[in-house]
């Protein structure tokens, strides 16, 4: 415990929240792009994340094998290199899925539900394909926790300040690794770049125009087919980039990791509003914040003397029955995000900053 005024590791929790939020942002940009341009929920997005994690891990293995002379590991262990490779590969995967499945479905003028079910099929294939190629068990994250990608050691500097006996913060432990610093840096850079892309470049404006109306975009001279390909490449690519950073941050990972993130990322997209990049950023911070706060509060409730025990004592005093209580498991942290999502959608169906109405038209 800390001895300052603040009773919890607030700095550490804040940094974790920021990192989680930035990871979510990087993972949801692509989903949002596909959602707004192609108008269907792409459940295979979860497997794009898994694919990004595995492909970035795999390139690390290859590099270790192919460049044995790189003793200082700057080439092998270069997270940026892995992430860019994942960007490329997952981007190509996105284009492949468009060519092989979604463009054909579009020709059949299938309903959005068919698209979604097809994305479930793609997810099924990808997930099990990855399990066959890379093994089904959680992979130990070899090379993932090394910090040699950075030429300097950030951890020491930050720790040194906060672990002293600060009058306000007390003895705060801060567990921010240099990989997490990288996530923050890249997260911010990604956000700025994507925002620039959408607001200022011809491609970005054309993408937004296409998401508004395919037909009008065509008569304005936009090759919508090309735009759809760009969208898939960028959407899947950014996802792969984020997934590579996420992978580096975890002690181990498995083929189910992406699927576990499916609901949080959809919660972020819908809470922020489909098609709204800035809303997505806000909602990522909300979801991450709610998750952390729930985690902290529920952990406190479960600790001795917490609310869980108080309820039990209360019923014991009145009815004389022991064990009447409800659990406040920190495991609910993910669920509370969905509750927030449902409540927000009830009052603001288009999300925080969205323009798409969630209500059926005129019904």
């Amino acid at each position, binding site marked *: 415990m800390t001895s300052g005024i603040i009773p919890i590791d607030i700095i550490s929790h804040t940094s974790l929240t920021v990192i989680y939020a930035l990871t979510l942002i990087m993972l949801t940009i692509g989903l949002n792009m596909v959602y707004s341009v192609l108008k269907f929920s792409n459940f295979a997005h979860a497997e794009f994340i898994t694919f990004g994690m595995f492909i970035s891990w795999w390139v690390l293995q290859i590099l270790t094998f192919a460049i044995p002379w790189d003793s200082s590991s700057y080439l092998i262990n270069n997270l940026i290199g892995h992430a860019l490779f994942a960007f490329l590969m997952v981007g190509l995967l996105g284009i492949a899925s468009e060519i092989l499945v979604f463009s054909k479905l579009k020709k059949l003028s299938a309903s959005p539900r068919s698209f979604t079910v097809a994305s479930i099929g793609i997810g099924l294939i990808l997930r099990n394909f990855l399990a066959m190629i890379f093994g089904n068990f959680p992979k130990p994250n070899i090379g993932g926790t090394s910090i040699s990608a950075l030429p300097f050691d950030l951890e020491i500097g930050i720790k040194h300040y906060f672990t002293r006996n600060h009058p306000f913060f007390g003895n705060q432990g801060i567990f921010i690794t240099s990989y997490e610093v990288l996530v923050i840096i890249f997260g911010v850079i990604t956000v700025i770049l994507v925002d620039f892309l959408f607001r200022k470049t*011809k491609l970005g*404006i*054309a993408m*937004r*125009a296409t*998401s*508004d*109306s395919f*037909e*009008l*975009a*065509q*008569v*304005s*001279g*936009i*090759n*919508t087919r090309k735009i759809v390909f760009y969208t898939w490449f960028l959407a899947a690519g950014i996802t792969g980039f984020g997934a590579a950073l996420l992978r580096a941050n975890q002690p181990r990972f498995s083929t189910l990791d992406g699927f576990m993130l499916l609901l949080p990322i959809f919660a972020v997209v819908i809470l922020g509003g489909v*098609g709204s990049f800035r809303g997505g950023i806000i909602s990522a911070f909300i979801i991450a914040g709610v998750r952390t706060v729930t985690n902290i509060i529920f952990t406190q409730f479960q600790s001795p003397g917490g609310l869980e025990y108080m309820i039990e004592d209360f019923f014991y005093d009145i009815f004389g029955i022991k064990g009447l209580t409800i659990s406040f498991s920190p495991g609910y942290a993910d669920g509370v995000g969905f509750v927030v999502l449902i409540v927000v959608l009830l009052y603001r169906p288009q999300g925080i900053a969205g*323009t798409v109405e969630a209500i059926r038209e005129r019904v």
Partner: protein
Amino acid sequence: MSRTVLRGEKIYSGYGKLQVINGVDIHIDEGELVTIIGPNGSGKSTLIRTMIGLVSLFRGHVYIRNKEVSGMKPHEIIEAGIPLGYVPQLENVFPSLTIEENLKMGFFVKKWDDHYLQRTEDLFKLFPILKERIKQKANLLSGGERQMLALARALMPSPEVLILDEPTAALAPNLAEDMLQLIVSLKKELKISILLVEQRAKRSMELSDRGYVLVTGEIAAEGPAKELLAEDKIRKLYLGVRDQK
């Protein structure tokens, strides 16, 4: 005789297995305002959507300025530098884009350089309301302003022929009259030819030079607007004019 800017020869087109247009010949000469009228479901929109490549052409030819564009996709027509402007009926602006970006979309295939700025300035003279709200998103505009933005977007590449699909459909009666007057003035000021599909058949026919009556995918009548207006059968059936003898 003046030159023909847009010409369709024996157009057959439709959606999937459904043939909607059955052999239509249509032409618009330079500086003309031509109106297509006809009952609901007669294929007016399909006809003009065929000519700009949004609907697949089964047979026949479409020429814009003697260049054959039959079978070309709309973006290919625009990329080929063919001077064409089109305003669809429903989704005629990009609602999540700002007005500036909407105008940029009209200039998509060209560079957004000085020429673009010059062009926007010209259009702001025609539609001063847009200049005031240039940074606003298009979904905040009112119905009339939306139509103006749609027109401005279509006029950005300085087209020689402008195709309008029911520009007055979503407007109140007084605004609709304004819109029709605006279209006539556009024709005069910019010296462009305009192809108009209209529900307000009588009023638009009065303002235009020539007219076509389209019924079940075929041309039922054509000719100078005044002649069409004078014909009794057309007056009764398609112009909604009751005899008040």
